[in-house]
């Protein structure tokens, strides 16, 4: 799949003739500040948008926008991360890094979506939750956990669109849904490549390798079964034609809402539960690891090697399991 990336970006990026550079170019494209954010996409996609503010507890987080939109006549609740267009707006929006109030606002509006039978559309583009003390001490962890939990059980269709960076728990806080869509040049990862490199390689300089190792690109995430649909981007990327990007997103989202809207709510919520309940592969070994006191290394290795793969967590393409496990 790196070849596919090479094919797309070979013309306008340097050093894309090796896989690592190709992936890193993809990461940089996902982070391109000129890519359209939630409000820009909405402006192109929606006939009407009424933003709603405030978590009814502490504040209003401008890094997450929420509201009611009408898209092709359909009432939709929209939640999305919002980076700024310029320095002033970036400061006001905290560079798109949300505090707990953003997730709590989103939960309040999701409750309205459920109560008034509006489907939910989320736009995900966030490096991660704000990592500072103000977010930590007001419970960013609790807010993300609760928002994830609420989305697993919300009784209305949810379509998630990853438009740029899908970074860590901060992204997942708005990224649980019935269908996970991603723009072609977006990324999705458990930790930023830089953070991963700092911890595992003990140096941020290895972030390119970390990005490759974590398989962060939209296409790889689709192959892993995390992303359901990848939307090709127009021209040299979403930022080169935001209107066409919005049109493509709208088309997919409306088709999904039509399809999901036909599923009875009980089935819809049960299917969403199953989707996330089975995420992540594992195998069932023949017998448990023996306690280290009683067995020799050779015995233990034999026990480990005799494991039989079963992977109940895999829904589609099973990734190549390494046989030495």
């Amino acid at each position, binding site marked *: 799949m790196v070849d596919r990336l090479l094919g797309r970006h070979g013309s306008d990026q340097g050093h894309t003739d090796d896989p690592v550079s190709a992936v890193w170019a993809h990461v940089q494209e996902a982070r391109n500040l000129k890519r359209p954010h939630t409000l820009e996409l909405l402006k192109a996609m929606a006939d009407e948008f009424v933003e709603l503010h405030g978590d009814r507890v502490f504040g209003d987080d401008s890094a997450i926008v929420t509201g009611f939109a009408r898209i092709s006549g359909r009432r939709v609740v929209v939640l999305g991360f919002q980076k700024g267009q310029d320095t002033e707006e970036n400061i006001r929006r905290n560079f798109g890094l949300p505090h707990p109030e953003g997730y709590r606002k989103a939960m309040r509006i999701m409750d309205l979506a459920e109560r008034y039978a509006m489907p939910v559309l989320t736009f995900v583009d966030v490096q991660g939750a704000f990592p500072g003390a103000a977010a*930590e*001490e007001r419970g960013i962890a609790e807010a993300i956990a609760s928002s994830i939990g609420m989305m697993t059980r919300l009784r209305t269709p949810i379509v998630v669109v990853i438009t740029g960076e899908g970074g860590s728990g901060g992204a997942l806080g708005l990224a649980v849904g019935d269908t996970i869509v991603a723009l072609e040049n977006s990324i999705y990862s458990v930790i930023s490549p830089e*953070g991963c490199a700092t911890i595992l390689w003990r140096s941020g300089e290895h972030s390119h390798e970390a990005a490759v*190792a974590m398989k962060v690109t939209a296409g790889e995430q689709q192959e892993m079964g995390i992303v359901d649909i990848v939307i090709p981007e127009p021209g040299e990327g979403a930022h080169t034609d935001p209107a066409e990007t919005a049109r493509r997103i709208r088309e997919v989202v409306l088709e999904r809402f039509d399809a999901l809207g036909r599923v009875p709510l009980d089935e819809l919520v049960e299917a969403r*539960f199953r989707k996330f309940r089975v995420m992540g592969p594992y195998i069932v*070994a023949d017998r448990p690891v023996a306690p*280290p006191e009683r067995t020799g290394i050779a015995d233990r290795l034999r026990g480990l090697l005799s494991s039989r793969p079963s992977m109940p967590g895999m829904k589609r393409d099973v990734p190549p399991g390494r046989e030495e496990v």
Partner: protein
Amino acid sequence: MPVRLPFRPRRDTYPPDLWTKCPGCAEMLFNKQLDKTLRVCPNCGHHFRISAKARIEQLVDGGSFVERDADLTPVDALGFVDLKAYPDRLMAAQLATGLRDAAMWGLAAMGSKPISMCVMDFGFIGGSMGSVVGEKVARAGEAAIAERIPLLIVSSSGGARMQEGTYSLMQLAKTMSVVERVKAARVPFISVMTDPTTGGVFASFAAVGDVNLAEPNALIRFAGDRVSAGTIGEELPPEYALAEFWMSHGFVDRIVPRAKLRDEIITLLGFLVAPSNGHAESAPSPTSRPRSFLNALTGALSSDGNGDQNRGEAGNG
């Protein structure tokens, strides 16, 4: 989300020798003595990290723990290689701990009350949560729902496991999807946060117990030191993000020294579980139904306690 912690020496977790130096007061402590005090420094009260197995032994009624799904084993779905290959890290951790991954779950009794429990083991790749850990948390929750018995989760984790990529991230959604069902079923859930409870574990099940308990001085935080320092450059006070900090900020109900943890959980279970004898104490939950697990557990205890023999769901489902 998985963060680099200010790790104390790894040997604290599984001390290979007779003596351990207390990181709290620098006293040299005799390991056998330390075990008697539940691995709490008798001099300064420092709570050493302990293995899942030791934790379970300290908490549950003697011999009542019946492990489930000990055979769940992680896979290297991404073919992940950093300075080491992920399979090598897994094997080293498995050899060191005797576990297949960083959590144990099973059924047990506390104060003669049946519970479903899952305990994380920091000694296994920093207690990081990949697909197996998420699966065990989820199964513990599902067993609690099926048996209508309380769920107890003892967390000890550096966060999501990077080597499983977004599969690890998805464990936040997997575990929370089950926790939401636990809550909808009115099944009690006690979360115990021990040192450390960080990253994606704090940002999922650990934060949302009906009652959140924490061990004294446990480090509990979402963003890691390096993440914070790198992105924000804030100076943080030494008491930042310790258990006491979280109690004053409203996210921890009680801080419980290890010596009192078992008793306190039993006390809480006494409140959260309505008495089964039919006296009109208060109106019952509309969703309550008879429990069968106590019988099942009694049966299990009379066997040899090997979890493999109890893999099927006990009780009436």
